[in-house]
């Protein structure tokens, strides 16, 4: 692996314990059985038959949800799916405000791309997908009239306005009309545009809470129509709490979720797969502020190799003992660390990994998952072993490392929350 890339991965993991967007396979462990089912049963299985599916990912805070979602994203790219990874949060993208969720989806829409290195930021968003569509269409047929005829033959999506907007954006790019393209992309992103531009391109709708679902379906239909296998949505409730705050918001969010679940399977969402990752299913499905039993029942079945139609994927139960999981993870991280800094770590690394793994597992009830604690503490231990090869990481030192890590991550969390409040 490229040394700088390895260093970038180690740096991200060592600072916060959160995974980088690239190179995720270099330290993936235990997810293979789940990913194999997602790939075989869905990406290669039913989705190409214009079906759709919904999965609920549950896992503690710092327990590998984002890692899992990035892994799914990489698989989806390999099978020619577009992907929208959306980090849900209460201020910018709460799940009860579907029009904001739609905006976040189109802003994060990505066509298949290499996953072993950081993707340039401009390769994200509906604008880049439209541009790529034009480039690829041009490669296939260079004559403008052929391209425009193909555009005319493109199936109309559920929202005619959406269809007109993407077709208009295509034509504008062909005609090298930068201004027109920019206006249409602005509309596709859910922003307002001038009335005359809407009239020019026969756009009669706005993206708001009444139309957001239709726009979402139209987006899926369009992505499918322009040659991709489908669209994979990765919703990540990445915050400690949920993006939903009040009881009323919760009801709306759960209604949105129920509608999404119910729509999966019908032909209006060809090739779409939704993953919704939450830190605590009880926050969403139980507890105070109302419980939506109808949705709970729909999400009750457990996904596994033997039951691929199950809805709930529990990342706390990977079928591998926690210590064994951490030792495997630590070994991969050590290899990555050695690639990042050149040279071999002293043999003490194996003992350090083993001790840290055992101690971290006993701290399973911390407010931060033992997995994230382990990752950050292990990387700190590797740095120490590299700087002072004679260092001994015994039980006491492992406890100290975990404790300091727990305090540091906890403090960072608190600062983040306070920063959002004011």
């Amino acid at each position, binding site marked *: 692996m490229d040394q700088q890339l390895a260093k970038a991965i180690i740096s991200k993991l060592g600072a916060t314990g959160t995974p980088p967007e690239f190179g995720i396979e270099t330290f993936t462990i235990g997810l293979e059985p789940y990913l194999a089912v997602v790939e075989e049963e869905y990406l290669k299985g039913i989705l190409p038959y214009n079906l759709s599916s919904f999965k609920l990912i549950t896992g503690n805070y710092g327990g590998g949800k984002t890692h899992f979602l990035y892994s799914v994203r990489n698989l989806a790219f390999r099978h020619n799916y577009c992907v929208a990874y959306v980090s849900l949060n209460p201020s910018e993208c709460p799940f009860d405000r579907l029009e904001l969720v739609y905006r976040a989806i189109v802003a994060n829409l990505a066509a298949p791309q290499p996953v072993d290195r950081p993707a340039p930021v401009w390769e994200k968003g509906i604008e880049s997908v439209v541009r790529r569509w034009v480039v690829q269409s041009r490669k296939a047929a260079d004559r403008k009239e052929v391209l425009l005829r193909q555009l005319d033959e493109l199936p109309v999506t559920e929202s005619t306005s959406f269809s007109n907007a993407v077709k208009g954006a295509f034509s504008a790019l062909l005609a090298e009309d930068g201004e027109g393209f920019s206006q249409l992309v602005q509309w596709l992103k859910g922003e307002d545009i001038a009335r005359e531009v809407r009239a020019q391109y026969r756009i009669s709708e706005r993206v708001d809470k009444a139309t957001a679902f239709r726009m979402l379906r139209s987006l899926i239909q369009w992505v499918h129509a322009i040659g991709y296998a489908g669209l994979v949505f990765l919703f990540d409730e990445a915050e400690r709490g949920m993006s939903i705050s009040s009881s009323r918001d919760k009801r709306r969010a759960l209604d949105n979720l129920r509608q999404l679940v119910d729509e999966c399977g019908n032909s209006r969402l060809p090739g779409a797969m939704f993953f919704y990752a939450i830190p605590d299913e009880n926050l969403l499905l139980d507890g105070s502020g*109302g419980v939506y039993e109808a949705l709970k029942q729909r999400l009750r079945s457990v996904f596994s190799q033997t039951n691929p139609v199950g809805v709930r994927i529990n990342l706390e139960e990977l079928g591998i003992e926690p210590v064994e999981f951490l030792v495997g993870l630590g070994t991969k991280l050590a290899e990555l660390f050695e690639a990042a800094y050149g040279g071999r770590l002293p043999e003490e690394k194996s003992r350090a990994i083993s001790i840290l793994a055992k101690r971290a597992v006993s701290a399973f009830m911390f407010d931060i998952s033992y997995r994230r604690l382990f990752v950050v503490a292990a990387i700190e231990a590797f740095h120490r072993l590299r700087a002072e090869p004679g260092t001994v990481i015994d039980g006491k030192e492992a406890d100290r490392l975990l404790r300091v890590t727990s305090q540091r991550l906890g403090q960072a969390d608190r600062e983040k929350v306070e920063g959002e409040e004011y």
Partner: protein
Amino acid sequence: MEGLLARLNSVAAGSQKVAKRLVAYRMLLTDPVNNAFAREKALAGVSGLVNQFPDSELREVLAEWVAAEQAAIERDKEEFRFGFGTQLAQALEQAGLKVRGQLPVLRAGMFSLRVDFAAGKAVIFWGPEVERLKESVRLVPAELASTLIRWSRSLKEKSMEPERLARLMTEGLRRVYVQRGLEPGSRVPLLEVLAEVVLLMQPKGFRADPSREKFVEYPRVRFSYDLFRLKASGQLGQASAGIRVHVATFDKTTDKTSALWVPDNEEGEGTYYSYISLAVRANEVTEGDTPVSG
């Protein structure tokens, strides 16, 4: 001289108060980590008294000690956080209660608890933060564990036999049907039937003299647990064959008087129910309804 005497008396009184608090504080130092939150509270009291102390070398020494102790408390609170979950899990697992979840909310069997480290307190709930059972419980793992174990045992020991509950519920339902002029098969609020069940289960003595002393209580948490057992028993008597409970809508679940959370299993997963009915035909089951006999 009078002024001097008054100042000396004031210093003596202040010293005595501080000394008394320090003696109490010394007791807490026998287990500094587990008492970290109690020490914080006690030290705040000492600190207040020290601030009122006349300006002197003694006051400076006391203030320095308070500052050093505050720093030590912060360290011990972190130490406590580090060990809290593990100690609690060990204590509960000895009693067969498996702890799951992530701080600040943990689940132990059918109970859950919300931990507030800043306040040094916890709230214990029945179900996933459904019914508040006890608030402001001290963050002492052994005490928390013994409270949960005691409740868990009490629910089992006081549990009504499923056959008896089914009989009482059937009778209670019939009463509600008659009172309201409803046809058998109609849905009635579950909590309304609970009220009838409570009346039906009262001893003869209560009927003769309905005083508080003779009243046999039946809290909703026990009803919830007994319904769980009834659902799970599969040994229902003839009279209960047609009892059905109906899943609550979202709005009903926000109102304690309209819905009851009932566990589905020992791990604390559960369902809210709001209505109950007595089926006309035992094999008639509609979607979303749970026949108790099933």
